[in-house]
């Protein structure tokens, strides 16, 4: 039996440990924050330039200048910071982020990921070739 999106997110949340900086990609990864234990301190990073990403805003409090990698409206938690894209990928490529959670297009049983395009096909493309630079990567099927 296959898992639903929420169940996948719930399982991934168990990988998040106290003191982690965690990058969240598009799709199921954005759900993971909902299931992280509340007795640990974690900071969520989004590639478009925020560390300390909070939950979705309340209705009427959306800010077009505050979105996540999936272009969804978000909030910033106390202690959050904003930065440019080069700095954001500097955090990732410089291996300062502890964990990245990615939505993937295709994953093999060996953990190979086809993420920016399926070879030979033009489909929706998502370029995250930095993934393998990270010490740990967990991917979930979109």
């Amino acid at each position: 039996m296959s898992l639903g999106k929420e169940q996948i997110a719930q399982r991934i949340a168990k990988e998040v440990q106290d003191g982690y900086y965690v990058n969240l990609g598009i799709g199921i990864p954005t759900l993971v924050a909902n299931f992280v234990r509340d007795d640990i301190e974690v900071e969520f990073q989004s590639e478009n330039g925020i560390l300390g990403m909070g939950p979705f805003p309340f209705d009427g409090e959306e800010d077009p200048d505050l979105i996540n990698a999936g272009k969804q409206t978000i909030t910033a938690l106390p202690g959050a910071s904003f930065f440019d894209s080069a700095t954001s990928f500097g955090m990732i490529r410089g291996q300062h982020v502890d964990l990245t959670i990615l939505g993937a297009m295709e994953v093999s049983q060996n953990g190979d990921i086809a993420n920016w395009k399926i070879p030979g096909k033009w489909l929706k493309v998502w370029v995250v070739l930095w993934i393998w630079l990270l010490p740990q990567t967990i991917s979930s099927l979109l």
Partner: protein
Amino acid sequence: MINKTVTNVSDACEGISNGMTFMLGGFGLSGIPENAIAELVRRNVTGVTCISNNAGVDDFGLGLLLQKHQIKKMISSYVGENAEFERQMLSGELDVELIPQGTLAQRCLAAQRGIPAFYTPAGYGTEVAEGKESREFNGKMHILENAFKADFAFVKAWKGDTAGNLIFKGTARNFNPNMCGAATITVAEVENLVPAGELDPNQIHIPGIFVQRIFQGERYEKRIEQRTVRAKN
């Protein structure tokens, strides 16, 4: 203080012509230079190459230029939100170069800072590495990526002053600071333009030296792509 102010978007775009390469800031529709894009549509400049993380949506952002077939080539990291883009790409009307997002940002930054090329491990062993020099550092393979070359950079900031100093807001910052000074001419549009001296120098994200022209945008729609909210308990 050197005054970088131009009166309107039309003056800001003086010198653009067909076939040029433009950089445009923004992530999705957040932080895009809305007024400059509208002017590029109005002028119907064609055959252009656009360096931008995304290509807008069908009826907003760079999607407006795509609709009118003004873009010859897109250099982006992610283009999945735009059906017209997909159609033009599949039919071969549009040339597309996909670049890992961190490399895209760094190639802008390299251009801004006078660094002709840099090594990165991202993309080694994939299609991205084809035709590029590679070299080993500390036991890991890297590929050589070049700085971008562009004629105009169009960026959008929250506040700016007449000296060209810029302050960005939230995640609308994204690629905008990295593109400042990365093209021959950088055009900054801002929501609030104030006289030099009014902004706190401690708070400035981009010094005016990286900006050639600045103007206050006439209007900003600031469209939200994925409005997502939670219920109040």
